[in-house]
């Protein structure tokens, strides 16, 4: 299955801490991915107060694209742009990514709200994507 996913972790100051394109890479739509996810943040801001759960499910869509969101207690937003709908798999993916992000926060050399440059983090996110999304 050649689905394309765009995953981004957005910090509290609305800047992306980490972003990756999972699956088929499409250079021409990188800006569109960012735009869609960035625009969906407005809906996350509203939706997070409507639910007590971290996982907000699909909060926005544009054409065939869906945006799912997960808000951590520290208001870091995990955003996934996807075509296919698989709520359970995406929820599990988000939960594991959240745990991964927590471990990054525990690193004393990582300054919160700064871009995550760790290659290990990147590899683990890709592994989680293979595990849950593909």
């Amino acid at each position, binding site marked *: 299955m050649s689905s394309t996913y765009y995953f981004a972790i957005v910090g509290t100051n*609305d800047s*992306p801490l980490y972003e990756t394109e999972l699956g088929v890479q499409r*250079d021409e739509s*990188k800006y569109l991915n*960012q735009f*869609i996810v*960035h*625009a969906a943040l*407005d809906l996350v*801001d509203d939706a997070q107060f409507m639910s007590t759960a971290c996982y907000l499910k699909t909060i926005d869509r544009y054409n065939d694209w869906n945006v799912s969101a997960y808000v951590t207690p520290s208001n870091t937003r995990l955003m996934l742009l996807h075509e296919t709908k698989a709520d359970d798999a995406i929820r599990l993916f988000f939960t594991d990514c959240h745990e991964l992000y927590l471990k990054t926060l525990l690193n004393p050399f990582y300054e919160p709200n700064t871009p995550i440059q760790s290659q290990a983090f990147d590899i683990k996110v890709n592994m989680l994507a293979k595990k849950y999304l593909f």
Partner: protein
Amino acid sequence: MPRASLAQKKDFVTKAFCPRILALASPGVQDACAVNGFDTFADLLSPFGQDVLTQITIQDGQGAPYFLDKINVRFTTDFNIEKSPTQSSSDVDSLVNSCAAACVEHADPPFIGKDGVILDAAMADDISTWAPWYTLFRQQWVGDMQPSEHETFMHPVGCLLVASGSEADPIGALRALQTSAAVQRVLACGDGGTKMLFYYMLLHDGRDTAALQTIDLQFDQVRKTLGQNSALLKINTNTDLLGAADAGERIKISSIWSSDISATRPLAAQPEKSYGEMLTMRDVAALRDAVKLMLVRSVVPHMQYVVRVLSDQTASERRGITGRLFSAGRRYLNTTKAENTYVGADGEVYYRHKSPEAMLRKLADCSFMLKDYRFAQSVYQIARRDFQSEKAWLCYAGAQEMIGVCKLLWEVQTTKAEFDSVFEDAVSTYVHKTRTPRRHFLAVRCTVVYYELLKHHRFYMFAPGALLRGPSFSASLAALLNEQAAYSYLKAVPRPNVRKFAFYAMLASQAFQRAHMSDLANRCLHMVRVSLKSRPQEQIRADSDDEKSHGKATVGAKRPTRASMDEKAAAPSLPTTDEASVDKVSVTAKTKWTAIDSYINHELGRQSMAAHNFGEAFQYFMALMGDEKTPPKLQSKYLQELLQLFLESSDQLAGDYDGGKQASAIELSIPSIDPQLVRIIMSPELEGEDAMLEWRPDGSSPGKIGGGSGPQLPRCCSVGEVVAVLLVVTNPLAIGVTLSNLTLECAFEASGDAAATETTVDSALDISVVSTVILEGEQTTMVTVQIVPRRAGSVSILGAKYLLCDILPTFKSLVLPGRRMNDTKDQRMGVVHTPDTTLGFSVNSDLPRLEVTVDDLPDTLMSGSMHRACLRVANSGTLPCHSVAMWVSHPSFVGIRPPRLCNDEAELAEDTGMYVPLSDVRKHERVQVPNVLRDYSTFVLVGGQTDTPGSSAHCVEPLGSLGPGEAFTVPIWIRGDRVGAHTLSLCVGASSAATAPKDLVVMRSRRFEVDLLVTASLRVNAFVRPSARNPRERLLGVEVENMQPDLSVQLVQTTFTSGFYELVPVSSGNGREPHRALVGPRQSVSLVYRARPHATADRPCDSPEMFAVRALRQFIYSSEKPASTPEPIGLVYSNNVFAEQGIDCTHHSLQSYITRSQAHRRRNVLRSAYPLIPDKYHSAMFPLFESFGIDFVLFWSQVGGAERAGHHSISGIDLGVPHDYLVEGLNPPTEGAARTWLSDTMHDREALIQSIASRSESALRSERPLDVLIRVEAVQQSDCSLYVADVAISVYNHSWRYGYQFTLDLLSPHELDQFVAEGAKMEYSGSRAAWSWLDETSHSSSVEPHGLTVVRARLSCYAPGMIDVAVWRLQASAMLPAAVPTVFSSKSLDCVLYPTQPHFVHVGTV
């Protein structure tokens, strides 16, 4: 919201769906209209059909009364149902283009501020003003509605027939109009159940004065003939007064029609004519009254009549379940089904006019036009059901649309589900199910109407969904709808969705771009760029809270970071004609969403390029270059476009770029050259780090120049010296780039005499040019540019310049801010940095040019072994050098020889080895050596003549000066002093002073570092035992273990140095024992020496210990700090030579080395033992050597050759005799007033006293000041076969400070149990019954310091043999001098001693 304003806002919809009246005029009337500038009579009436106040109460479809406030009506001149608008995408594009062109102003909306979206303005402002072209489009689009079979809004509700009174037969004219083709077409669409309304109007033209008399008569005839639906209209009544009419009034009258045309047909060309030339205000009033009269008297009652009739005819359709069943039964069973519907030319299913469904639709439309929305909605819902079942999709979609409109116009609070779904269904059905050519028009109309109603109700959250559902068959239409969707997000409640706004504005810009409307596309992109700067309010609040909590100043009080430097570097310094109008900081998009930024900058750059705005385009394209995450394809594309842009703009900017001047070059972010990684290397062909360093007199490592004000140049070079500048060039892109003609831009400031004359950079500096640097993708390379200064002055590097890809002249700034200033109020309130001096150096014409090299530095050594390295200093300049010094980090590792000027022969003849061999080594030798403890890490090589006290500089026969062309070498012996890995630093400094300076202050220095690994060779341990032969003596054992697996070591010599003891080997008198001096691999050898006081030992009062006590007391209690230095000490050298030839330990080279090692060790010991005493007082308070410490040196050489030799040493061996003397210094002086201390100083002193006192009590081991030795002198045999022996008991006092009074109790062995029972710890293993003391067993006496007192006693035993006589108790107390206070004193002043080991004496036969 007040209902009045709501009513105003929904006017658009009510006006769009208002009743139409067919207005037909006779030729005479046409003439009257033409005189006033109107084409038709409908045009004349048109303004007066708007907002006609009816103020009447009418009945709805069910007979219930309601109040009709006002009504709109439109007059048409023709009715043709076949005419249908075909809206192709090109038509729509041209329409939108026309709308945009009609709006001259394309400025940003008022909510777009400089730093983001102004939310308050966005919330307060009206959305229609942000895009006036949409308002025009909306008006034009809905105004283009044409009659259709599926709805009756465009069907005239009545016919207005107008004849002129000037005509011969007005009645005939009216009848002729009544039978005209247009009227017939209207009648053909009627259902037949209701009559058509005809309204007759007789027009009297005032110009025709002849008809004035007969007009009333004619009107009576008309009324009699045609009925009551007749009216008389008189215009142009006062033609006589027209000439005198006010010009203002004329304009006012004309504007009534012109404003009506601009409102209803905004895009129609406004003819250059004035309307109503022959009309007066009275005529205007007459027209208005005539229209109102027609509406109130005829049109509205007629519509009511139609509603009532249709309601009756369709009652069964609308009446509950019965009607539905009846309707359904008729539909399925009746064979007349086909008669009700037909398929139109466009393939759609339509209803015939007499069918119940068509009548329902007409009923609903009429009710809607009479504003009875509730009833209309119910009828629409009934009709919809039938339309759906018949698959008449166009009718169905129209009904759905009107249901939604009715719900929203009804003004009852509705939920989204109630209206949004019907509109969605309507649009979807229009677009996807209908096949009529008008489906796009109808879908857009539905979208526009729905959007207007949502705006009216302020349901902005639903607006984007509604707009985006609209058909997007045209790019311009999609652009308009997306733009409106973006604005709707901005008006969303409870807070504006700025990010959504940005997204849809971006989509709108794309669509505008596709529609070739670049102005609006650019406008949208600008809005996106600005809105991306906006931050949510919560975040702004959170940030401000953070700033408050951290106490930060609100002014940007941050040191510029690397990123901000990049940002500044990315801002180009391109001089353009309109540069002043371009804000450099805000023109490019700069968020953390890099792909978004790249897209916006690229699009804006392309648009600026197309608009020939090259200055702005450059900024956008250069901002594109900095993003590393851009895919390689895009990077390549961006770079090509940038180069193309430069080539295209080169004609315009040719004058600015010629010659590649720095001011005209572009600051580009690629490739990146980090200013912090730029290195300036003086004399690049030499090794070592070169810098101007400060040499402090305390012997610490030469460090950076600190303190003082003004710029300090840490580097200095002489004229003509080569300076290499190392640049680390990184290509952040994934594609390769080429740099050519890379060189540096420098600033030069001449100094001295040259400052008076004008000096240019070109004449003062020779800067090399690197022809080509090829950088692959993401490659980092180092580029070296050489600078050769030709004149004295200061040089600072401003940046690097090069040609990028052989085309683009680029300048890269390398200037960094210096240290943040914090001295004055202004500096604290603002951000002030010192000028950076890291990328600069000074050129000093007085500085001698030295070449310093260090040869033969080892990397591995065995511990204790030696290696010879060589320092060579050559003066390659033209000035003599008068001061050269060297500093080493590990003085205990390094031994140096005096410097020697090198000419070829002398250099070869130099060097005799580390040790000075001596064949006749004396066993004991006493030598006076300096006893000053100080840092010996600095050596003066040139210029220092004397070893001045207080200075750390250590002179080893320095040279006077070093002339031009001369060189000298210094042999350096490096010894592996400690096992492990070490980094040795060696620093050689030269002063530029013409004469030798008194102090070493600032010197140009070259620092070398060498990593040295020291491996273990020998392990030497020392141990101490008491001597059984002499109480004065101690046995000192030395165990030497060879750690090497394959190396045999020959011991050459052992040397002990002590101020008090001499040591002689125990085993042999001559000490030459070759068999014992050979230590094989992994073997060990023990050497035992007897330590005894030397005959010529110093008196205690002159000892270094007393110096330390006095100095400590002075430090603590006196008002003056200790500044004296200890006297030289006479050291006793006890040599024991194993080999044929010994080593001269008193030679100054070895002696200076040993002194350095000792000083290094001693300082470390003191620093850890007395941390509260500052380092700077160590030399004034502590001597280098102590009297009673023993230093041991073991010289060895490798067996089988002299390639490897060395020595091991143990410093400060303690024999275990009492030396707890320092506590005496804590006692306050008996004389001399102590200074009154400040409280802090008092606390410091008390802490120091406590630390030393507690250390005395806890850290030091228990010491025995007295030693006892028992020796049998004579043995007698008594009568009773007892053996009686006379013994001499020697009591020796090891203390150098106090004499002792003691009482010696000799304990009888058989009473020992009783004694032990008292709790004393004495273990006795000998026979208790075999012997006993005789006579007096308690002896009292005294013993002087280092004195010996002998006590006589006797013992008796039963049989000869060895007896353990160690049964005694010695109670001693010190005899203190009267001057010694006793607050703090040694803990061994009063002591009770017992034997610690068995002591056997032999009692033999007589």
